């Protein structure tokens, strides 16, 4: 029974695919996978917009949406209808083809990235992909081009400035993002997401053997999380769309459903990168405690994804936006050296073999690097004390 529940969606898919002649079956299977991903994550996107507005409202002492449906739950639906029926404005000076293509180039690669995420046991849309993590990052790298297309084709200085900021930021944070993922690939010895999840399927007593519970994994997870926030242009790294300076950055000149597509692409990218963080560091669909393995595996994936979404909303409500020089200094002077030290720590962890020594050595190395780098960066950025003319 538990097994059937665990494999519910796999059985369902096989049953539907069984209706079709053998020649069609691979295409029907792929189509079903794609439909499931689009349906589930677009719904999650709709719910997240509602949750985000409600949560931010709570943090800012206001109600948030509460007019449409109970607790404003139908607000995403109303927003969707609004986006579909709005006039699609294209500036006269804009480059129409590139302006039209930009939202598509943003959303399609993001959806492609989902093809290697293991949502549950035997639930990888692209099974047996030898270079899964690489596919994820390759798909993600196309979004920079889409942002450039949007910013350039609008013929608007704010769009262009937003695109410049976005590309600079994404290029800078892509380096620590990939380097922190490389530690896991080094330890597991495979780029395949299925093998990475399988490698974390051991339990020490009750406790799981996830990568986040090792010194290098913990540091890698935090680095990955910060870099992922920056990659998906979320607050506090939302300079590219800073409302108060750039109106909305690279998508100022988009309206109607194209604007909604930019939002969709941003949130889908956020979910995808959270899913990769779960896969790399938090054991994928593995249960958090050994006696909970009877709960279906897909439940655990989503149970781990939702706290990520809540965390990102919380961060957005809490932290002020960074300045551009702070952003770049943080990426190149702290994140990058830290990620490189983390690689060394992971290598030491591998070569020292089982025992207490590897815990002490890699933890000490990371702690020393953290303290030294923190001192160096904050020391370099020391500023004279400010004097306010009227307040002092």
């Amino acid at each position: 029974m538990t097994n059937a529940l665990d494999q519910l969606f796999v059985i369902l898919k096989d049953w539907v695919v069984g209706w079709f002649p053998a020649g069609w079956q691979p295409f029907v299977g792929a189509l079903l996978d794609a439909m499931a991903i689009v349906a589930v994550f677009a719904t999650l996107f709709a719910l997240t917009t509602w949750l985000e507005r409600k949560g931010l409202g709570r943090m800012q002492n206001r109600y948030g949406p509460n007019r449409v449906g109970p607790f404003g739950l139908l607000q995403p639906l109303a927003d969707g209808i609004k986006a579909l029926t709005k006039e699609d404005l294209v500036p006269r000076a804009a480059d129409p083809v590139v302006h039209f293509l930009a939202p598509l180039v943003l959303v399609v690669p993001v959806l492609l990235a989902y093809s290697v995420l293991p949502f549950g046991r035997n639930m990888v849309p692209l099974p047996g992909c030898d270079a899964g993590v690489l596919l994820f990052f390759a798909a993600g790298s196309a979004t920079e081009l889409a942002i450039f297309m949007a910013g350039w084709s609008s013929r608007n200085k704010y769009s262009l400035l937003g695109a410049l900021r976005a590309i600079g930021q994404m290029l800078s944070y892509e380096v620590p993002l990939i380097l922190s993922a490389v530690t896991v690939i080094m330890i597991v010895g495979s780029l395949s997401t299925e093998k990475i999840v399988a490698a974390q399927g051991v339990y020490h007593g009750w406790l799981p053997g996830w990568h986040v519970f090792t010194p290098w994994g913990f540091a890698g997870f935090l680095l990955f999380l910060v870099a992922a926030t920056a990659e998906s242009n979320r607050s506090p790294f939302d300079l590219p769309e800073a409302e108060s300076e750039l109106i909305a950055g690279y998508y100022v000149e988009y309206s109607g459903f194209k604007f909604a597509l930019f939002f969709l692409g941003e949130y889908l990218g956020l979910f995808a990168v959270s899913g990769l963080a779960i896969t790399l560091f938090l054991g994928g669909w593995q249960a958090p405690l050994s006696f909970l393995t009877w709960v279906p595996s897909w439940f655990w994936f989503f149970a781990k994804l939702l706290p990520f979404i809540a965390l990102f909303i919380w961060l957005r409500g809490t932290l002020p936006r960074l300045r551009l020089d702070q952003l770049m200094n943080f990426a190149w002077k702290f994140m990058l050296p830290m990620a490189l030290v983390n690689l060394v720590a992971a290598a030491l962890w591998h070569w020292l073999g089982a025992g207490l020594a590897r815990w002490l050595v890699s933890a000490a190395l990371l702690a020393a690097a953290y303290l030294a780098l923190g001192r160096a960066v904050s020391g370099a950025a020391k500023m004279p004390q400010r004097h306010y003319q009227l307040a002092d």
Partner: protein
Amino acid sequence: MDWAFFILAAVTLASAVGAMALRRLVHCALALALAFAGLAGLYLQLGAQFVGLAQVLVYVGAVAVLIVFALMLTRNVAAATQPLGSPSWPLGLAVAALAFGALVAAILSSPAIQRPVRELPSGTVQQIGIRLMTDFVLPLEVIALLLTVALIGAVIIAMQEERSRE
């Protein structure tokens, strides 16, 4: 299988022609990015996952972005550039035809094309990694050194600019 090849080949060739023939520089850069992506698709279709995905990551994700970034910073890219015709056109065509002919002749006469097709090797990513770290470790290190030198050079150029401004 063949259909995938024909579609990818057509997209790659069309966008490569577009990269040369389009009037606006940004359109050319975007067409070039599409050509890179089409090439990656061809690698993937041949079963070379690592090469194909690395092609996307490096060429579409880095090289194309670098090109458009440079375009954005250097000149007024909105204006259409010079007309397509140029006095050196026939000469260029002749050189291109010669180079293409030489390449085709070299490929057709090479012993590699007569060799029977072998089974695709399994676990290719791991094999590439092992080969890179054993047989090809010297070229790898030389390239790494070259890239580091280029990186340090770029930093030094940027630093000098700052000093002269003070």
